[in-house]
């Protein structure tokens, strides 16, 4: 009985490990594809924003956007564009933008006149996918 229990534990750990591998590799691939949306005139903000989403989970990214800059947000999931819905809110929860109104556009530029403290929410388009890695990339130019 103990041997059977031990074998089953090994199986469970193996399943966990495969889950880990599959979780990390798709995120890296998604990020690489997403980078195509951040063109050369934008400088990366130097950070990785990723989340594994299931069903209707929402990822929340908190950031400050400086006045006088233009930012590009690229938001991706899966291996094609249009799978991720992202919305930008200010701290008072006024909706600044949502790509849902623009066919889930994979990127959008934001020209900031005055510094803005904002929240970006990202969720999978339920019509496309029930789970996946959400990647957000941020670039800026002066």
């Amino acid at each position: 009985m103990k041997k059977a229990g031990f074998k089953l534990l090994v199986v469970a750990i193996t399943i966990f490990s495969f889950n880990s591998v599959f979780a990390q590799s798709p995120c890296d691939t998604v990020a690489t594809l997403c980078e195509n949306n951040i063109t050369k005139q934008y400088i990366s903000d130097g950070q990785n924003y990723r989340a594994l989403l299931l069903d209707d989970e929402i990822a929340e990214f908190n950031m400050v956007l400086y006045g006088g800059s233009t930012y590009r947000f690229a938001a991706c999931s899966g291996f094609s564009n249009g799978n991720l819905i992202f919305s930008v809110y200010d701290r008072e929860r006024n909706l600044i933008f949502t790509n849902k109104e623009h066919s889930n556009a994979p990127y959008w530029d934001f020209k900031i006149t005055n510094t803005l403290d904002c929240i970006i929410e990202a969720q999978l388009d339920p019509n496309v996918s029930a789970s996946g890695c959400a990647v957000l990339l941020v670039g800026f130019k002066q």
Partner: protein
Amino acid sequence: MTTRFNLKNQALLLSLTAFFAVSCGDDQPKDDSTETVEVEEKNANNTQLLELDGKVFSIPSPIQTAYLIKGAGVTYNKDILNVPSKVTGYSTNFKKAVNLGIYGADLGYVTLYDQTQDAISFLTAVKTLGDDLGVSSAFDMELVERFEKNIGNQDSVLSLVSEAYKSSDKYLKNNDQNHIGALVLAGGWVESLYFTTNSAEMTSNKEIINRVGEQKNTVYNLIKLLTPYYDQPEFSTLVDDLMELNDIFEKVEITYTFVEPTVDVAKKTTTINSTTTVNISPEVLKQITEKIGKIRAELIS
């Protein structure tokens, strides 16, 4: 809005593992009910998942502050930078990580001021620390070669450096070293605020002073980023110092007024028309300057 995770699948798998580990044919029923909770995920599968109740906190790039300072006509001042040769004295991962961020900010600064020789020195320091922290793949010889090849082209060099830091951030998160990644961000932010307060003091430039005040929200974000690691060596001092700094920033008044943004669909551009005014008294500016100076002095020592 708070992010919630549906842990049904993961809770089930965890339950299965526990079940097989300790039982011999126990007939306890599985719990299939959906459980939605707000938790901090910390396993290898979720190194890229959100932490802190499902929220991710971003720290602005130090390069943007350098742009502001240079754009305001502030002259190059090497004295405000950390000395590259001190790199060999940083022995703990804490000091290495935070100074990787500090030297990165310095590198951005000298690059914007076309200080080629200084840039090479800082790049060397960055590479040394990157190697020590195990992110040598981000700061490899190829980066050095491309950097040297593009010297003179600010945008290309800044892009290269930023991409290297992003690559480093990715590696650290993939390898469950989020605390090191957070320290790199912290170091970059401390250094850029140090530049900003120094420049504000020298010039009394309104835009630069406002930029100091605008850090009110970022210092809060940074504290949230570092707090999960409070129990680790050296983190508590930094977090405590940042909380004291945050208390000073509470005296900065920021007034925000929402104005409907303007959308240009063809250009895929939204212009933010909302206004933000910053009210920071000379006394509060002085307090922030002194406090960030002390924090920074401790980090680079």
